[in-house]
């Protein structure tokens, strides 16, 4: 960062978008796959035996669009399969690009003086692509049972579900596409476009079960509040354009354009215009991560949406917001001397958010609302880590324990990314368990969970694992991520004092940066949160199943498959997390 946002050209391959050669396609392979999948989803269910007669003749050409549908292509189960195949392929492409010869691409628009740097494909964007695709894949697989499609549906619900299969999976793929763009964008406008593609899809997904009043209400509220926040953010972005003349983050050495990052660091003292713009943009992302007080619509949306969609909201959508925050806080507005202007404000928001989330979760009897508030609390923890990052004297060496990542800033960012990635395993997993319960009726209180251990011990144990992971109990992934977060913040706040402590010169609280108290707040809030996480365990293991819920749970094998995958991931990323932490560290290095 000391080079103020100008990347060394040697590291990266600069490619003009859609230029000659295969580089664009190589760099954007997962996105291309997603687009192809989208197109296929449009086309395939519409294939039929329609023919076109050449006028004035009797010659008929088959045009394949419309007419009587083929049985194979009009199978209601087909969209799910297509979406899953697309996501799998995209996930695979993102995964293999993480190999040893991982490349960094800088994608520009046009050539010559007009070229803007639009996208950057690097370790950071790749890990989030993997995370998004994994989350959406799990949700898509789970939706096979949550939103069942059957060839011969008889009841009305079945017919409704069959007819909207295409819509649902189309929106899922759209979400994935929008999120991919957000991870890669190096231009605030592109970022905004991606954000809106994903957000609008999600608004619809939230309100997807429009036959239930909660679904419609939650979706609309979420949309309205989201629209307001987006508008504010867009206004901020427009002010930034006014200030800099372009919205690129990085300076373009080829064209001599100065990016926002460089321009910000060149400011002698803080100027009003960019600062106002910055605050506005912050509001938009704060809504996306559901930070207090922009979170109000979130619990309504979570409880109105089907649990699979709520799981996406809590993981992928939240991560998207954090990507935005990382871009504007860490890349754009972070001075090199560890006195970021947003540090205090963000710290306050973080503490309010986590406390608010935990307190509200304490008394919510609806498990989906409880998980929603828990997700707000988690956002608070991560915001606290980001706030601590503001205290980082960039490039300062706090290396005492001689372990990678060596630097406190890298440590925190690594922990943040790690947390966002493993959140998919246990947060989404918890929502998937609720989705499994939803297949036999609404889940609006804890009654469906009561006595789950007797009806289905494996699912109950998985749910308990997710709860423990959310609470941060070792050796699960949730412990690892929370541990990294807190220790990163402590490391950061210790700063130079670390060396003194290691040398045995004693230690006092006064030597610590005030961000230390953020770590303490995270710690205390975690303790508080144990209560409502463990209560789920009590309900599942010690209460008697309610009347009408005595029989074994639905088979729903696809949904179970996703739950198992999440449970295994929760354990594995807790115990053997080294590799993933390395990937996250690479991603963090790509940002810093």
């Amino acid at each position, binding site marked *: 960062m000391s080079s103020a946002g100008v990347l060394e050209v040697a590291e990266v391959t600069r490619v003009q978008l859609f230029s000659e050669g295969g580089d664009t396609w190589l760099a954007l392979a997962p996105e291309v796959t997603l687009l192809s999948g989208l197109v296929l989803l449009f086309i395939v269910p519409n294939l039929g035996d329609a023919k076109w007669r050449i006028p004035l003749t009797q010659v008929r050409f088959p045009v394949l669009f419309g007419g009587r549908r083929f049985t194979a292509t009009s199978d209601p189960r087909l969209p799910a399969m297509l979406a899953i195949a697309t996501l799998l392929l995209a996930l695979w492409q993102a995964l293999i690009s993480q190999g040893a010869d991982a490349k960094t691409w800088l994608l520009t628009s046009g050539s010559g003086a007009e070229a803007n740097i639009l996208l950057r494909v690097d370790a950071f964007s790749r890990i989030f692509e993997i995370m998004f695709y994994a989350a959406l894949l799990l949700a898509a697989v789970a939706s096979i049972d949550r939103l069942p499609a059957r060839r011969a549906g008889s009841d009305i619900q079945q017919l409704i579900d069959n007819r909207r299969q295409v819509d649902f999976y189309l929106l899922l793929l759209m979400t994935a596409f929008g999120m991919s763009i957000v991870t890669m964008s190096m231009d605030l406008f592109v970022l905004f476009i991606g954000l809106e593609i994903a957000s609008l899809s999600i608004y619809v997904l939230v309100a997807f079960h429009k036959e239930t009043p909660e679904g419609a209400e939650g979706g609309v509220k979420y949309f*309205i509040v989201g629209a307001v926040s987006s508008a504010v953010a867009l206004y901020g972005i427009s002010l930034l354009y006014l200030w800099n003349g372009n919205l690129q983050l990085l300076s373009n050495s080829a064209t001599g354009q100065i990016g926002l990052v460089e321009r910000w660091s060149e400011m002698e003292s803080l100027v009003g215009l960019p600062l106002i713009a910055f*605050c*506005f943009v912050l509001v938009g992302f704060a809504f996306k991560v559901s930070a207090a*007080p922009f979170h109000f619509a979130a619990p309504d949306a979570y409880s109105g949406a089907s649990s699979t969609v709520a799981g996406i909201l809590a993981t992928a959508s939240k991560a998207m917001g954090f990507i935005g925050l990382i871009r504007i806080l860490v890349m754009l507005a972070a001075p090199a001397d560890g006195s970021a202007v947003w540090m205090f404000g963000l710290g306050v928001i973080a503490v309010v958010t986590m406390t608010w989330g935990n307190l509200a979760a304490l008394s919510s009897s609806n498990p989906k609302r409880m998980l929603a508030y828990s997700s707000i609390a988690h956002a608070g923890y991560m915001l606290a880590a980001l706030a601590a990052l503001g205290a980082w004297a960039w490039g300062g060496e706090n290396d005492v324990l001689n372990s990678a990542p060596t630097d406190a800033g890298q440590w925190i960012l690594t922990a943040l990314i790690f947390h966002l990635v493993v959140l998919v395993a246990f947060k989404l997993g918890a929502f998937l368990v609720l989705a499994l319960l939803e297949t036999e009726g609404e889940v609006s209180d804890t009654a469906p969970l009561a006595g789950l251990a007797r009806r289905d011990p494996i699912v109950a144990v998985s749910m308990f694992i997710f709860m423990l992971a959310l609470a941060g109990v070792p050796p699960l992934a949730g412990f690892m991520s929370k541990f990294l977060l807190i220790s990163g913040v402590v490391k950061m706040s210790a700063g130079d004092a670390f060396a003194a402590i290691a040398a045995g010169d004693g230690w006092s609280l006064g030597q610590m940066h005030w961000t230390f108290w953020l770590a303490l707040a995270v710690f205390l809030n975690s303790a508080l949160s144990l209560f409502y996480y463990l209560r789920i365990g009590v309900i599942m293991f010690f209460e008697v199943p309610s009347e009408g819920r005595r029989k074994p749970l639905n088979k729903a094998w696809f949904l179970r498959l996703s739950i198992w995958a999440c449970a295994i991931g929760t354990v594995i990323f807790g115990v053997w997390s080294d590799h993933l932490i390395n990937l996250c560290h690479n991603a963090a290095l790509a940002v810093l």
Partner: protein
Amino acid sequence: MSGAMDYALWIPVLPIVAFPIILFLGNVFKGTDLWRGKWKEGGIIATVVIGTCLGLSIWLIVGYIGQVTGNESVGQIGDWLSFHMVENGNLVSYSIGFGMYLDHVSVMLLFVASFLCFLIAIFSLGYMNSDPVNLDRNHRFYAEFLLFCAGMLGMVLADNFLWLFIFWEIMGLCSYLLIGFYYERPSAAYAAKKAFLTTRVGDVFLLIGLLILWNLFGSLDFSVVWAEDNIAAVDAGTLKIALFMMFVGAVGKSAQFPLHVWLPDAMEGPTPVSALIHAATMVNAGLYLVARMFPFFASPAMEGEFTDLAILIAWIGGITAFMAALIAFVQRDIKKVLAYSTMSQLAYIFTGLGAALWFANTGHEEIALLAFGASMFHLFNHAMAKGMLFMASGSVIHEMHHAHHEVSHHGSSESAERDAGVGAAGVDHAAHGGHEDHDHFDAQDMSNMGGLASKMPITATAMAVGSASIIGIPLIGGFWSKEGIVGAAWQASLTPGGAWMLVPAVLVLITAGMTGFYMSRMWFMTFAGKPKTPVANGVVEQTPFIPIPLVTLTVMTLGGVVFAGFEFIHWVADGDAEMHFTNVLSGIGVELKHAFLPSGEENGALIYLVTMLTIVISTIVGPAIAMALYGGRLAKGEKAKPWLAWLVSLSSRVRRKNHFDNSTWAESGLADSLHQRLYFDAWYDAAMLKIVVPFANACAWFDQHIIDGAIKGLEYGSQEGSSVIRRLTTGSGRDYIMMVALGTLAIFVLIWGVA
């Protein structure tokens, strides 16, 4: 050697891995025919695993004995814990590894433990699986059994005191679980709790001792703490406190006075548990720990520093030996007799170790080694014999139970028909019903037995040989070692400065005779005379698997003479000695000379007199009195095996010659107090009530009001906060947007404020 050593880690690890598997499979397949029949509810898995451990152990042991050098320590197999501590301003790193330590003592105990674990696993296949009470919960037994084996084997192999302690605690846990195996019986639940809490007292001391040791040496590795230079560098007084604390731990584990009260109650567990844990292996852990203190006492730097501690150990041993033997006089429960006998024999070993430590600390190295070896050899003999005795008693109890069922079912043909009709599924129910019907009958009470010598020939033989070994009948098992212990105690008391050793020396001498009495009493009450109840008349030796370990151990015990011929005593004490496999006969000659001829040393004649006296009172006087009181001919038409028949007829002849009325004794206050176990339990209960309960109440008050109060306050605050927040969450979209606006404002204020 190295080959076996590579696999040595598996000896404790295998059972640890297998134990959850059995639990899991048991819970899944519980009740199926395959699981009950072929798999013996997990018993087969347990036996195979322990068999593998035994194989590995023997491989290890043979390889170890084959090489001549003293100790083998497989350094650290891996670092287990490593941590940093700030000491005097420096960051010091420590690490605790896990490794194996082999010397002659651990090799011996490894063999004892794995061998007995294996035999008792086989015994359990017969004993546990044929009792309908245990149906569908045997997997729990086998799982806990395996965990126990892991604890014992791990403790023996551990190369530092920390791991020794960890495995020690695993054993304590398993002991608790297995004593409480029949947790639905209040007495079993109580006994389990009592055993756990009593040993816990000792364990706390042990932990304190180990912490002091850590503080002194900065390590708990045997190789570090036993190093001569390191011992010389530490403060003798502090080290003595540490050793004392560790000794208290040993007292608790080995059920010695004054922490002995748990062992008799521990007999509530299934008999294989009594045989394994409370006779043959776990209770030896305390002895092993004391034996591991030997290098501290033997260090020249500490010479003369710890004599009082050694004398204390011998005293505790002597008192326990005498007291337990006395209580054993009046016990009628066959397992209780054996329990007190165990206590008493372990006390012998403590006395022997006390003498050995005393000699070591006063610089008499040679005789110290001799006493040490004798103690260890007694441990070996006692484990073999007592394991066998318990299994034999289990066999008796089992067959008595069975016969009792037969008898009571013949009594009411109705219930028999019902059982036949209901079939296998009804067995469980019928068994429970049967228990309720005739609960008053005690299958463990020896006064219900009698005359079993002809009905249970294998068991009777095993019992006779085992008793002979415990009594110390010349040439059989325990004889070789007991002589050494009594001799060493007397030798110590006659050495200048050792006058204090006189009390334990006298006590163990008297106890030798008492042992002869109560062990014989048990045998004659059970096997000689006429059957005292119709149940005893119907006993048949029929349960499968049970004879295998009995026969094996009978041979082992009789073969004690061969081990003696290997100069085992010398070998186990001296790390550099070789096992004399070749000259068994001359070895036996040497040992015989030791036992029966006066040695040329100081006070040789007196020691000779003492050992001769031991032989006479234990072999002749004790059994003779028992015969006079409890002997008798078998019922008409019953014929015991020839090697038992002479014993039975001898007893009846002795009884006819001496009409010996012991009713005054039996009704005296002494007998009464013995029945009350010398009031120890009552005293402890009173002390609990006076001291512990008020303290516990105070703690409870503090917990409820101060700690809970704080938590409750926090909880209340959270609930309040929660409800406030709920009121803010109105559910109206308009309010949400207002909140967004307020939030935007807040961000502006916060950020502008700083900027």
